[in-house]
């Protein structure tokens, strides 16, 4: 047994000694690193790529953030996202509960759902446009087809794998079916639901951009293409930063919610 192989659990991951007092700064280091790569690529390149340099981007970003019309686009994007998420929850949670609870429903739907899940939501676009026409409804439909599955599948999994003994205890304590559902089954499944919702939120926010590039003339996705058409190239990475920022914030808030409901 050489001393080298002996390591305490804490030290087994190399560099863990850095994650101490200065650990809080590490995310900032990562962000600065990303910025450095961005700057290097645009500074070393020539031609059109120089348009996307950080300095120009941040200058445009400052203008964007100061202009009221920009917020109209942000709001309409957030609105579409919220409607799509609402639809995913309204359909996904009940379907997930039924599929998780009834073995036959699970058998009947597993192949179908796995099949549907693998069809790119963007493939639905022509159908959406033909059925719903150009506009918010098409974009929301495409997002819905993308964000539904994680909620259905995680909810179903949570219901199917709930600890039977928890139910037995609840029964022996005198709970009827309704009380057991409300006080045992639902709280026990919430972590799985939140996992599904978190995945769904990520997918919805990602699909939002291409959805808005295809069928509408408002929103952040549309704005990116519009910036290209107006030859204001620095605006493109500026809008991307805004998209990333909102997405990060959305994910962070669900993660916080999830942490409160996570009992390991």
């Amino acid at each position: 047994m050489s001393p080298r192989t002996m390591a305490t659990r804490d030290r087994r991951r190399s560099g863990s000694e850095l994650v101490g007092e200065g650990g809080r700064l590490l995310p900032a280091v990562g962000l600065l690193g990303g910025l450095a790569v961005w700057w290097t690529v645009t500074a070393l390149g020539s031609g059109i790529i120089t348009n996307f340099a950080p300095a120009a981007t941040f200058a445009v970003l400052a203008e964007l953030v100061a202009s009221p019309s920009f917020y109209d686009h942000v709001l309409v994007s957030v609105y579409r996202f919220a409607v799509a998420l609402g639809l995913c929850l309204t359909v996904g949670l009940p379907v997930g509960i039924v599929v998780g609870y009834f073995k036959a429903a699970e058998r009947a739907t597993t192949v179908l759902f796995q099949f549907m899940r693998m069809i790119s939501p963007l493939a639905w676009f022509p159908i959406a446009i033909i059925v719903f026409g150009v506009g918010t409804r098409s974009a929301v439909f495409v997002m819905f087809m993308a964000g539904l599955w994680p909620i259905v599948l995680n909810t179903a999994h949570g219901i199917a794998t709930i600890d039977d003994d928890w139910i037995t205890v609840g029964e022996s304590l005198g709970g009827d079916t309704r009380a057991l559902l409300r006080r045992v089954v639902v709280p026990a499944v919430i972590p799985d639901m939140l996992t599904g919702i978190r995945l769904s939120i990520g997918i919805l926010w990602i699909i939002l951009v291409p959805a808005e590039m295809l069928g509408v003339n408002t929103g952040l996705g549309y704005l990116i293409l519009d910036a290209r058409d107006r030859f204001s190239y620095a605006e493109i990475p500026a809008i991307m930063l805004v998209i990333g920022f909102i997405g990060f914030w959305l994910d962070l808030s669900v993660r916080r919610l999830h942490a409160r409901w996570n009992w390991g």
Partner: protein
Amino acid sequence: MSIESRAATTDDDGGDSGGGADARADSASAVEQDAGGAGTARSAADAAPVVASDLTKRYDETLVFDGLDLRVDPGEVCCLLGPSGCGKTTLLHLLAGLEDPTGGRVEIDGEAVTGPDYRWGVVFQDPLLYPWLSVRENVEIGPRLRGEEPDADHVDELLELVGLDGVADADTADLSGGMAQRASLARTLANDPDVLLLDEPFSALDQLTKMELQDELLRIVDELGVTAVFVTHDIDEAVYLGDRVAIMGPVPAGIEHVERIDSETRSRDDEAFLAERAATFEHLEAVGLE
């Protein structure tokens, strides 16, 4: 049963247990083996008798027991002792209504057991606390499941009774095994059950914690005056806790022998207690060798 009435007797534990021991000794001569008679050590007005008659349980090809009779008197502690796989947990599940018998019937307080009910509370081998609730909320869940608002004073007293009043707001994940099992016991007691059915509740605990909890269980059963059926594979535990120990043989033997425990004191080094232990061990050995 009211918590207030027994709170007064908590302090004079010494005098109380002396009286209890006398009563225990008296009743011993009055009742023969498992043929139940009235008058047990803990005469509790609210406690209910548990009666199993001609009980048969079969899983497909396996006969667990056949025509089993058991009577547990009000306020009595009856231990079911036997080797692994002898069907003692199955018997407890039948008493609790968690499983249906193949034949025969179970009555608690004269009422046929057809399913689980809060009046016969079960303490399981694992604490099975709900991890999304605090310790206190876990104790409160019984009344809530029955659609009642839990009585805050009652819950306080139960938490104190099991020694968890300091960690009422803690997460269940932060409890030790012994503390979790105390919380589980308090959760069952919050329903004011007439009968306590315990399925090897201390078997996963270390020896010291186990002994501590055994003493506490005896104190609690005495204070609340409930009837208790306690499943265990630990001879010392059975002899220490039980007014009677029902010894079960390998399937499908059922209950082979019922040993009445007459020890006047529950001191673990008392001679009479050791003699009871030896007698129980002999019977268990006889059953095991068959």
